[in-house]
């Protein structure tokens, strides 16, 4: 993976998860590459902690006892709209993923991700990019597929041919760099496409998206 020009150690992270064991694991895994400045185990603690510490990236668990990652993201973004969230989950259920991304997370990874992948994902969202797992790319392709009725706002409700191509390759397991070389694009262009898709996923009003997410449970 390409290392960002800024020193990687500069990325300050708060880890939010209700399992202390998991927080400790993440802390150990992130190691020297990322600086874990705080942790929280509840929605309330997380909001105060994040607003006080103003970290670069918040790693947030999708499932928490009192409201989940969604509640944290919404509360923090109201106070501090520049906050950057990367969602971690064990579930991979479509409705969870879509809900957390629509709440404002810049990316989504599963907890089974390896250390290098997690560090890369943290750095990527810190640089302003979106992080799409193959699973999330599959959800997006499914949700925006042409089988649904005519979109009300083509700007937000349809993927361009290029965006579809990028999503397909990510779903097939390609990294951004591999996507770039396959499509003869720069990595930056690929990142731009992914960010555009993230925006559509967050802002599209097509109700099929939520209906789809709640009826379909891909595992």
């Amino acid at each position, binding site marked *: 993976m390409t290392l960002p020009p800024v020193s990687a150690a500069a990325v300050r992270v708060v880890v939010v998860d209700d399992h202390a064991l998991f927080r400790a694991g993440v802390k150990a895994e992130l190691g020297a590459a990322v600086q874990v400045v705080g942790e929280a185990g509840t929605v309330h603690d997380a909001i105060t902690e994040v607003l006080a510490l103003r970290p670069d990236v918040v790693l947030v668990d999708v499932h928490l006892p009192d409201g989940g990652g969604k509640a944290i993201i919404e509360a923090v973004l109201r106070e501090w709209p520049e906050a950057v969230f990367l969602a971690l989950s064990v579930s991979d*259920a479509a409705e969870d993923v879509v809900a957390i991304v629509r709440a404002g997370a810049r990316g989504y990874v599963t907890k089974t991700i390896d250390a290098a992948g997690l560090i890369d994902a943290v750095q990527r969202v810190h640089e302003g990019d979106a992080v799409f797992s*193959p699973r999330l790319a*599959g959800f997006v*392709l499914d949700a925006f*597929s042409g089988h649904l009725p005519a979109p009300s706002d083509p700007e937000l409700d349809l993927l361009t041919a290029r965006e579809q191509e990028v999503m397909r390759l990510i*779903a*097939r397991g390609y990294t951004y760099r591999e996507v770039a070389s396959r499509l003869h694009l720069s990595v930056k262009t690929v990142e731009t496409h992914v960010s555009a898709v993230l925006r559509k996923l967050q802002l599209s009003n097509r109700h099929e998206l939520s209906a789809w997410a709640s009826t379909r449970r891909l*595992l």
Partner: protein
Amino acid sequence: MTSMRWRATLAPMQLGPLTFARRDEHRLLAGVAGGFSRQHGADPLVVRGALVVLSFAAGLGLALYAVGAAVAEPEGAPLPVAHPPDTRRNVAVAVITLGLVLVVRSTGVWLGDAVMVPLMIVVAGVVVLGVVRTDSGSGSAAGSSTQLAEVLSGRHARARVLVGATLVAVGLVIVGLGDRVSRTVRVGVFATALSIVGVALVIGPWIAGLAQAAAEERRQRIRSEEREAMAAHLHDSVLQTLALIQRTADDPRRTVTLARQQEHELRAWLYGTRAPSVDTFGGAVGQMAREVEQLYDVRIEVVVVGDAPMDDDLGSLCAALREACVNSAKHSGEESFAVYAEIGDDQVEAFVRDRGQGFDRAAARADRHGIAQSIEARLERSGGIATIESEPGGGTEVRLVLPRASRSESPMLP
């Protein structure tokens, strides 16, 4: 709108065969009313009310009951579908009853309006008070305490009790004020009515409390049953796996495999309302990947977009996909790789991609029977194409394409 609804429900409204079986559970006498109502979709209480009213009409109700008991199949006889209770059928039974009453009245074998009119109103009141199941759905035999709870706490409970009580009261008042009724009867009726009101006022709150307690108890029972089921499941799955993992702590790969299997299983149990179905292509691909994961200790990231019911061609595509997965698992040297399948209107496309050591096809052709036989030949028989991109050190990607020209309208699953 209304007519649409009527038409839509007309088909299942066709009368089934007139036969019915006497019912054993919750029967009052021989189970005739219960059996009849189960078979024909009326509320048992309505049927019983009709029989009571008709019994006063020249004993017609008793006669009908006897005939019913004689012609009914014995208990437990196999029967066509049971109808759930249905308001229109209840109304039908009531109307038929009224018609029969009028017929009997015109024949002259009649106790007199002074008795029959109030009687019918009282019976109607009792039926309205008691009919709960038509608006609470299934109509399955609930215990009497919960039935009581539903009467008192149901959605339309208050309105129902009010209407029923009014009907009963009106019936009694008509008897009480009737010209042809003797003074003694009148006093008796009023005394009875007053006693009923008094008793209701005294024991009403107690019964309501009882009903609430019963409902609460039922909730508790459901909760504890749920908890027991969960404990049993966790014991059979998660705890067993954890015990196994403790014993294989010195074999990391085995530990990972165990943990992953358990993860899949638990996840399917927690989030899968339906069991992973192999009737659809998506389900079959997921199942196939899990099998390969377990056989070869690898991790496969599966992404499926769209879905379609399984057929023979999709079956061979899935088999070819499995072969490609097995190849990646055995030869790539990587512990994880990706499967992606997209079901479109005119074709199904599937990919297996690993970042492993790859191979030179020209050199490997001779000894790689798997690819030639299982993947390419299998797919070509179904009219599909397999392409393999690989270079030594650069990973391998197998692409399988199956046209779906014959199915112009693709049944997308929701």
